[in-house]
């Protein structure tokens, strides 16, 4: 799930009126891409159908109280193609993606469910391999997979294997994280090099032959978020920049928080393999998905301490990449801009869809 203030207002994304998707009769691929068309589908179909005050926040995970405890609860489906890719597979992804949605709400993941839709004929060895990955990722994230479901559909009625996982966790005391928390003057921090998952999937699926090819960063971010508990009160917003990449995550936070942000392109960590892949294909690493990173918006006064904590928790390439410059200006203008090394600036709007579909 994605957050965006403009959805709550009932208007279009970026504050523009009217949804182009309103009159569309069939679902298109871009409606699952995490961009503007996804947001319109969620608003026009799901929120219109069964919206409530928890769902309408459109955060990565819903937060509520259960017998006095602050709980975060989330779910995600995984349809990544190929199922096995450099740096991970659908099993590792299905655990990490869901526990990361809990982590970026400031929660400690506690338990996960796993539901499988398997196409008739799928090799049991492959399934075992996926399940081992899930076991290992769960151990890494400090959760257990405690319930599940299995469905098999006829050959041709699914593409190999789809997995849906849900997760529940308890919010770390002192954490009060939502997409709407960013304030002018805050620092924008990312926990490591961006774009690796998107580039790895693209290289593997399309057999582009980049060597050495980019490897997915898919991993739990729990260790990083846990390490931030001492500075919990300085944290304003967090996101895992999955579909839509860093650009998507920053836009969602900026829109929900009604602020403008400036990102310094040179400060954004990008691996050489990802950079080369993007340069040749004309892709923007800021728009490629990560599956093991967290974007942190925090009180600028605490940014030095946060960097030390994140680096000590495994985010060796963590960096301050920008700042919240002020309240949002003209509601028709995208709120996030990027400054290049040469001092030129460009706007970084949300896109309609995703440049690389079926990455998660």
């Amino acid at each position: 799930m994605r957050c965006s203030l403009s959805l709550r207002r009932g208007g279009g994304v970026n504050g523009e009126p009217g949804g182009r998707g309103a009159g569309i009769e069939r679902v298109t691929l871009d409606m699952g891409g995490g961009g503007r068309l996804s947001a319109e589908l969620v608003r026009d179909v799901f929120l219109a159908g069964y919206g409530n005050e928890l769902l309408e926040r459109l955060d990565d995970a819903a937060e509520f109280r259960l017998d006095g405890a602050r709980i975060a609860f989330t779910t995600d489906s995984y349809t990544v193609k190929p199922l096995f890719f450099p740096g991970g597979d659908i099993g590792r992804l299905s655990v990490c993606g869901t526990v990361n949605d809990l982590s970026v709400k400031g929660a400690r993941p506690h338990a996960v469910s796993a539901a499988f839709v398997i196409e008739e004929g799928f090799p049991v060895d492959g399934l075992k391999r996926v399940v081992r990955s899930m076991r290992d990722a769960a151990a890494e994230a400090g959760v257990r997979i405690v319930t599940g479901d299995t469905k098999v559909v006829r050959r041709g009625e699914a593409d190999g294997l789809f997995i849906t996982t849900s997760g529940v966790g308890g919010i770390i005391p002192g954490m009060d994280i939502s997409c709407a928390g960013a304030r002018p003057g805050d620092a924008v921090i990312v926990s490591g090099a961006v774009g690796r998952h998107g580039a790895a999937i693209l290289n593997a699926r399309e057999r582009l032959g980049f060597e050495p090819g980019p490897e997915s960063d898919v991993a739990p971010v729990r260790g990083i978020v846990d390490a931030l508990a001492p500075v919990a009160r300085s944290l304003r917003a967090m996101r895992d920049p999955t579909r839509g990449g860093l650009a998507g995550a920053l836009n969602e936070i900026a829109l929900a928080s009604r602020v403008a942000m400036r990102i310094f392109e040179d400060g954004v960590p990008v691996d050489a393999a990802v950079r080369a892949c993007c340069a040749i294909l004309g892709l923007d690493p800021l728009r490629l998905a990560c599956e093991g990173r967290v974007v942190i918006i925090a009180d600028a006064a605490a940014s030095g301490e946060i960097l030390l904590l994140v680096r000590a928790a495994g985010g060796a390439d963590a960096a301050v990449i920008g700042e919240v410059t002020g309240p949002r200006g003209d509601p028709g203008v995208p709120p996030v801009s990027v400054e290049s090394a040469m001092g030129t600036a460009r706007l970084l709007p949300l896109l309609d869809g995703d440049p690389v579909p079926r990455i998660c």
Partner: protein
Amino acid sequence: MDGLILPGNVTAVIGADAYRFIAARHRLPGVVAGFETSDILRAVLMLLEMIADGEPRILNEYTRFSDDRGNAAALAAVREVFAPRDSVWRGLGTVPGSGLGLNEAYAAFDAGTLLDGEVPPVPDPPGCICGDVIVGAREPEECTLFGGRCTPSRPAGACMVSGEGACAAHYLYGGGAA
């Protein structure tokens, strides 16, 4: 017009030799350029040097991915599947033989023929000046739609679609103001 910045991606397939006639016949300098900021700046510098020297040539700045002769395998594939065809260019109109269409052997796959008449033409919205923008006759800011009814997240005209469109580039790099 004083010089041309030529497309690096196209040149990776067709090779820089395809443009030699521009310098020879029309006395215009051209530089094949990549897509980074530094590529464009370097291409402008190379154009200025040629203009200062009064010696129009076709130079290649994008040598990391393109050369004079192009990609033989890609060209062979293009020749196998396509044939030259008249093509309509926004702002210019129809130019004979300037486009490619599927050739006779592949005609069965040609949606343009198969759906002839079924797909209505999509006219530019009233007020759109994409054609003038593309030929450099007017600036995007001169369009009454620019930045208001026409933005990258909700394009009205073709030049606002994708970051490669002239109006989209003006919008994104000009701060979005109309």
